[in-house]
């Protein structure tokens, strides 16, 4: 969910060369990733239930395993291996192109945010040191930044080893749901693997009434050194948070701490062409 996004500016299934969708020809799928304004700029106070503002200064995510399956059963994949992107830098960022695709409906599209390994490479937005950190720690996502309510400022630098696979992605642009993508005959379809940075701060893993909150995260800084660590979040039992101050609904998970909640939230980051969604599974 990102209301800052100008939907009309998104390259949702942009057909760069207007042609038909069938006819036995071929086309290409060009993949990109973007963290939208929430990751590149800020998540403004107006979006939070408790008046906090969050600004990222780094948002590293490993993206790979881009796969497609045609309605008739053909399969294809992006040849490039997993790569780390810093979505805090101005995007969208190119992920790669899958060429020679039969024109028509590729109804099953998916990707992954796997844990970084020794074979993971770096996008131009990522330094060698950052790549090495991701590899060494096996992170799938690393997010750092700061938050303020106008009087208090807290920083955070959280690494997550929470690999996820986003499968059977559904485009919801144009007011209708479309499974996967349509490859134009002789043209290129642009596909965005969208990462929603605001989801780390949602107070419910399932409810459509979820709100963004940071106050309880800020309060977890028990040593008051200005940085909220994941270890400090792990020390906060969700049952200690009054239900009137955030549902922190855990859906069908067994999450019991604020740290566990934020970790589980990392598996809600991946989207498809803006607001589109996918089925997610872990490893």
């Amino acid at each position, binding site marked *: *969910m990102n209301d800052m996004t100008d939907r009309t500016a998104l390259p949702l299934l942009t057909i760069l060369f207007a042609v038909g969708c069938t006819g036995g020809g071929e086309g290409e799928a060009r993949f990109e990733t973007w963290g939208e304004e929430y990751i590149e700029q800020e998540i403004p106070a107006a979006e939070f239930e408790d008046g906090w503002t969050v600004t990222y200064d780094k948002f590293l995510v490993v993206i790979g395993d881009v796969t497609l399956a045609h309605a008739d059963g053909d399969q294809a994949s992006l040849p490039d291996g997993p790569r780390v992107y810093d979505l805090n830098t101005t995007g969208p960022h190119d992920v790669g192109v899958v060429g020679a695709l039969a024109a028509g409906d590729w109804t099953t599209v998916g990707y992954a945010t796997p844990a970084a390994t020794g074979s993971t490479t770096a996008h131009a937005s990522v330094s060698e040191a950052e790549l090495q950190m991701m590899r060494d720690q096996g992170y799938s996502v690393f997010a750092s930044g700061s938050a303020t309510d106008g009087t208090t400022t807290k920083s955070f630098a959280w690494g997550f080893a929470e690999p*996820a696979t*986003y*499968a059977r992605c559904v485009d919801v642009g144009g007011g209708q749901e479309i499974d996967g993508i349509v490859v134009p005959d002789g043209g290129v379809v642009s596909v965005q693997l969208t990462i*929603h940075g605001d*989801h780390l701060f*949602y107070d*419910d*893993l*399932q*409810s*459509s*009434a*979820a709100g963004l909150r940071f106050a309880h995260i800020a309060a977890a800084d028990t040593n008051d050194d200005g940085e909220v660590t994941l270890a400090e979040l792990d020390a906060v*039992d*969700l*049952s*200690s*948070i*009054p*239900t009137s101050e955030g*549902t*922190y*609904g*855990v*859906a*069908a*998970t*067994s*999450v*019991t701490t604020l740290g566990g909640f934020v970790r*589980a939230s990392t*598996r*809600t*980051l*991946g*989207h498809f062409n803006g607001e589109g*969604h*996918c*089925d*997610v*599974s*872990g*490893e």
Partner: protein
Amino acid sequence: MGVSALGWGLGCDSGTTSGRRVSYVIEATSDVAERGPVETSLGWSVTLDAATMGLSHLLFVEGTPVAQWRELLVPQAHAHPGHYVEGQIFAELLAPTALDLTTSTRLAVVEGTTGEIRSAIVGFYDPRAEVLDPALGDAVVVLSGTAERDGATVAFTAEATAADVLDEAIALPDVSGCPVSGDAEGGLLRLEVSIGLWLDRVPFDQLAGDAPAPFMRGEAPHNAFVRGLRKALAYPIEHLTT
């Protein structure tokens, strides 16, 4: 679309992707009824004297629960808060019932349609319209019992109202996305309420007052209890061949 908007708009006769008409037997029980005292993660052993739940409805649906994948009963989940979509309803129980959770109950045999039931929606009965059971009064759940840890014994009572379990997204006292395991054409749908999970994070040592000590609204034990009631994992359902 609101979580339940779709569900309430679809019946078993919706004609969307319905399969053959079949019968489902619906039963309800609890961990306490099946196995006796429950152990909580805070080290308390809890024995229930009474446990009553006002059940408004049970919907057995197509949608996949949002779960944590390494520990799961089910392998897939939609990735967006609010993107739990119940989808088609395959079977539903709409008769309000006061469930005695200290025993097992055969609730009904209902007509539904075949299909892969992946999750359920458990609705608490809002007693404001009428009294379902004197034991419930204005509550949707009433418990009483004793909790023991390290030689200490605490007698308690606990109540929760419809407001405590209100899902604001749909303005109903429902818990959505409850996991369903197993598969059958028709057959038995067996809800086992986990009172242990309801009470799992309750700090019984913080209860005060004369025995039995009530869970006071606004205090930690009641807050933890309410959070337990809202957990979808507290309402696992087995779908079995009868």
